[in-house]
């Protein structure tokens, strides 16, 4: 199989998120719609599952294995709210005016 075409070449998550239209990109500071208590992720959590389950890679592990969260790339799917069974994720929808979030072109 030739994998030369863009449609079959594996896309990185960064390339994929590059194709998502986000709201309020011009705003210098957007209000976070998800708040994560990473102290839980980095102390008692046995799986840190959001770091691989989040489809937008908003949860990442650093060099020393600590979880970090950013909401800017969030595509509002809700996965982390169910995946986290440790009570670390406080989930809500982004504010239309001050928040971030998506505008799907195809959906």
């Amino acid at each position, binding site marked *: 199989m030739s994998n030369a075409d863009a449609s079959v070449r594996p896309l990185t998550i960064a390339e994929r998120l590059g194709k998502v239209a986000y709201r309020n990109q011009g705003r210098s500071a957007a209000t976070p719609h998800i708040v994560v208590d990473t102290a839980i992720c980095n102390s008692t959590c046995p799986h840190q599952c959001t770091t691989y389950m989040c489809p937008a890679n908003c949860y990442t592990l650093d060099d020393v294995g600590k979880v970090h969260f950013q909401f800017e790339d969030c595509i*509002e799917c809700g996965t982390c709210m169910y995946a986290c069974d440790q009570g670390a994720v406080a989930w809500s929808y982004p504010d239309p005016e001050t928040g971030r979030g998506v505008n*799907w072109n195809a959906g």
Partner: protein
Amino acid sequence: MDERFDCIIVGGGIAGLSAAITLARANVRFLLVERGEWSGAKNVSGGVLWGRDLATLVPNYWEDEDAAFERYVAHRRLTFMDDGAAFSLDFKSNHFDEAPYSGVTVLRSRFDAWLAGKAQEAIDASSVADESLIATDVLVRELIVEDGKVCGIRAGEDAFYADSVILAEGVNNLLTRQVGLQTEYVPATGLAVGVKEVIRFDAKVLEDRFQLSGRRGMSNEFVGYATDGVEGGGFLYTNRDSVSVGLVLGMEDLRRSRKKPYDLLNGFKQHPVVADALRGGEVLEYSAKVVSTGDLRAMPKEVYGEGVLVAGEAANLVLNAGRAIQGMDFAMRSGMLAAETVIEAVRAKDFSTAIFTHYRTALDASYVMQDLRGFQDAVKVLHSPEMFTAVPRLVCDFGREFFTVDNRPTKKAWQILRDVRKEHLSYWDLVKLGAKASRAL
């Protein structure tokens, strides 16, 4: 605004807009609020809208040049795959060409926007055109509850009141949880993650590649290698000038697997059969969505409460029983039924729970709950590990041997089946699975 509406609908997706159109036609005064910049801006689906309810909501929609469905499903395929092979059940029939079609592919950002236009037309044609309203960019923070009864919504600094509220807020049903119809924390059991890409082609290339003509389209579901051993399946649907390709992954099993949904999507797209279908396309959009699986245990405790009705995926009304992934049609029907109960309440001037139970009765009597209840065993069988590991491998091994001519004495089909079965499943496992599947499906 201090006037009181007959009904407030939260969510301008398929359930909410179906309710809106139904209410407008009965001259009921309502406010529909949608948090997206337009209806569809926040919506993602696989997506095929199955069944014929769309023709009830928008009569003769297929004659409308601007109707924002992509293609009607005229060709269906179910594919079992291992790492190198794909064995498909393939069905094409001219009966699919008869309108109203029994399934249309959609891209929600466009489809919902069009359906919202139809809802506005229905409002304009009603006798209460000045008193009903569709408002976008409005996020509901909370429901207003007085004396245990839902009587409005709070959005930003504003409060809006109504005699009834239809929650059509989608799977992430925060308001349904606020009023205690759904538990505060919903565990991953019974839920899945969907990831998808929309890949663009010239319409001519698409039509030649998939042997489509006019508005004919194809739906293809995949089980097996598609998900690399994780519970779930894949899909590929043709749109007008793009395909929707993606995976639906059981959330608990994904957590256990430690795999990333977008890596699995890359693997699926690289399978020879899928790669052949996608060659030369341009990825337009990547999206993701939490999907209900049809497991009744994930449903809200009840679909109505005091002053409130829950419709669509806010009530986890989705079913994959092996024949089709149904959700948008359930949303449409439940939205219509919720609206009919509101109409009944408006006419009787009685918004008591006694009337709201009629929504439950109507939903139970409809195909939505009949199928959700009737196919619970199918949901269990489809989620058993054999169905996405041993079974597709067995089917593909059978295909490899059955379809290969190598100028040696040829085995009979039953001999091939016997031999490949041994490699993948114990005899008793196969018998048990076969018996379960034949009853359940």
